[in-house]
């Protein structure tokens, strides 16, 4: 008999399974939770930092490498051309030997040398000109400008980078006052930049090899930071959950001076305030209940005296004159009702004070019901029709079960209409008691409130035969047994009250 215990204070018995299942779920995984976002943000910052640094360093280093090579090559090339002595128009054979000699002096690396004058094309290779030399470079080298310049251009052909240089040869028109006049002879040199490209590739791989470990290292502070944020958040969640379950003394360990610590302190303050308010409310409620209980106690003693007197008066009423006799009987009846009301009030105060105790005993349920009906003299089959399944052994408090059945049947007779059907049967491991009447049923608006105290279905009817506490006491008794009571309307008419109690 698992349910013969009083319900846990402050918990709804029905709310058990779902909330437990929610609680049982562990820390939930958030695909875009704080941790993920923090880690991503850290990685992004690290990537941007590494990438920018690497890119800028790389650019600067690459430009330095290229500039050094270019400057060295161009000035070396010019130095090779400078000391030449030529005739105009140039002599092809002579020029070829000059070009070959320059080609041997390549600096910083070997180069191929080409010379162009008019339609003369001389080169240090087996081909008279190079396809790498662009028309732009040629045009720049041959341009007639006031001060001719050497120039270079990087060209990428078939994936190989080349440095092409052009140095126009000028001559002085006069020993002292002459200006530099282009001879029309232009020297070109073509140098492969393979080594430079290899150096630059090495820098790229170095940058990449440096950036990847940096990203991996950035993961560690990311995880630490996310843990620092997530732990207080998780504590807060647990605390809020615990508060929601009624443990108002839940507090969070607030340390540090950051925003999360502030939040924790605010939570603690709010929890303390809430706890105080709830305690005040509970005290007030307890005072009110004690007052009701005290009042009913104080009323019981004089009422007992009054009941004894009214019984004597009732007996003597026959000998009084009719008006006095009616008054005496009225007083007697009302005193009786008052006594019932006071008893009911005391009973309900005991429930409220959680002083009600269950004295269970293994009994025959059908016997119990039958006794109840006999004691109340509800034996007329036109009034109450029992359909009782025999031989159900149930563990219950016979006095409280009697009150439940008596209240339901009495209520049905008072508000419904005869015949009242009382069914008793076992369903699974539950004992079901069903009381149905043939009355008009209960209005749907009233249905949710039928178990409320002093609830009047008809507001105009201020007085009723009952105390107004009967169904409330029924509900409390059934709850005490760990069962449920349900009010409904039968499709064929009439109200049906169903009590389910664990066997």
């Amino acid at each position, binding site marked *: 008999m698992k349910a013969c215990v009083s319900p846990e204070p402050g918990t709804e018995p029905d709310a058990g399974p779902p909330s437990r299942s929610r609680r049982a779920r562990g820390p939930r995984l958030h695909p875009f939770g704080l941790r993920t976002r923090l880690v991503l943000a850290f990685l992004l910052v690290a990537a*941007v930092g590494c990438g920018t640094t690497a890119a800028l360093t790389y*650019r600067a280093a690459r430009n330095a490498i290229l500039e050094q090579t270019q400057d060295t090559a161009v000035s070396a090339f010019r130095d090779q051309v400078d000391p030449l*002595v030529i005739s105009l128009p140039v*002599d092809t054979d002579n020029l070829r030997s000059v070009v070959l000699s320059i080609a041997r002096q390549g600096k910083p690396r070997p180069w191929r040398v080409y010379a162009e004058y*008019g339609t003369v094309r001389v080169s240090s290779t087996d081909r008279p000109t190079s396809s790498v030399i662009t028309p732009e470079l040629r045009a720049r080298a041959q341009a*007639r400008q*006031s001060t001719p310049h050497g120039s270079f251009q990087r060209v990428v052909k078939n994936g190989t980078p080349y440095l092409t240089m052009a140095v126009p040869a000028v*001559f002085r028109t006069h020993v002292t006052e002459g200006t530099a*006049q282009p001879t029309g002879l232009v020297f070109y040199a073509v140098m492969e930049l393979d080594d430079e490209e290899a150096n630059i590739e090495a820098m790229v791989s170095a940058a990449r090899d440096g950036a990847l470990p940096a990203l991996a290292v950035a993961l560690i502070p990311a995880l630490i930071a996310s843990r620092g944020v997530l732990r207080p958040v998780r504590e807060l969640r647990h605390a809020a959950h615990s508060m929601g379950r009624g443990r108002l003394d839940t507090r969070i360990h607030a340390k540090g001076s950051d925003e999360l610590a502030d939040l924790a302190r605010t939570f603690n303050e709010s929890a303390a305030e809430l706890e105080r308010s709830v305690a005040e409310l509970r005290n007030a409620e307890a005072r009110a209940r004690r007052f009701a209980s005290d009042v009913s106690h104080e009323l019981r003693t004089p009422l007992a005296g009054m009941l004894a007197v009214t019984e004597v008066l009732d007996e003597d009423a026959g000998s009084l004159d009719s008006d006095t006799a009616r008054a005496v009987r009225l007083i007697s009846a009302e005193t009786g009702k008052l006594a019932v009301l006071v008893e009911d009030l005391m009973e309900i105060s005991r429930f409220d004070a959680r002083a009600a105790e269950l004295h269970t005993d293994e009994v025959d349920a059908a016997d119990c019901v039958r006794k109840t009906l006999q004691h109340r003299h509800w034996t007329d089959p036109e009034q109450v029709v029992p359909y009782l399944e025999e031989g159900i052994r149930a563990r219950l408090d016979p006095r409280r079960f009697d009150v439940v059945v008596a209240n339901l049947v009495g209520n049905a007779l008072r508000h419904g209409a005869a015949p009242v059907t009382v069914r008793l049967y076992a369903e699974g491991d539950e004992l079901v008691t069903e009381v149905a009447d043939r009355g008009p049923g209960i209005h749907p608006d009233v249905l949710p409130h039928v178990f409320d105290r002093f609830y009047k279905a008809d507001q105009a009817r201020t007085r009723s035969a009952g105390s107004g506490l009967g169904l409330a006491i029924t509900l409390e008794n059934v709850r005490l047994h760990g069962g449920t009571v349900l009010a409904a309307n039968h499709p064929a008419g009439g109200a049906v009250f169903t009590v389910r109690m664990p066997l």
Partner: protein
Amino acid sequence: MRRGTAAVVALLGTVLLAACGIQKSDVVEAGGAATVAVVPAPEFRMVLYFLGPGGRPTPVVRDVAPPFPDSTFAAGDSEWAQDLKSRGLGSGTGHGTPGARITTDKVLAALIAGPAVADTAAGLTTDLPAPPEAPHAEVLKGLTPEGRHSVRLRLPFPVGDLSDAAVQQLVCTTAYAQDGGGRVDVSLMGTDGPLPATRCDT
């Protein structure tokens, strides 16, 4: 914020992609030209301007009355000497003393005579007509406001329909024959009238 992040990533990607490897470049000027020595020395030569491929005025240097026939520079000399002799400009004709400047008229006569065999072999041409008489240069008195001499060239042919390249041939040859620095304004006077004063365009 999300758009900003995307922009940063895109920028970074662009920088990284655009920066990889060795990129081709534009033509970059680097330092001056190489100054070579041209034989014979300025005192013993004249400079004629013919046209290279594409109509660029290209200088050609000719020996004038070399005092030492064994020039340091090899092949072309004897050929030039023969050419010059055949045109009446050879060394033996006694025009001017060795080392003295040859007169501008003689240089112009050589220009009008057109490119020699060696010049033609190097792809040089002329755009000037070949008249029977030589042109005559007169130095005008006084200097231009910029301190340049002025020379008027009297030509035995019309100048109105001369090409720009031909005018440059005449102007440059005259300028450098007249003045070592070429700082001379040259005006052409043809049979059909004058052309405005011009300079050698370098």
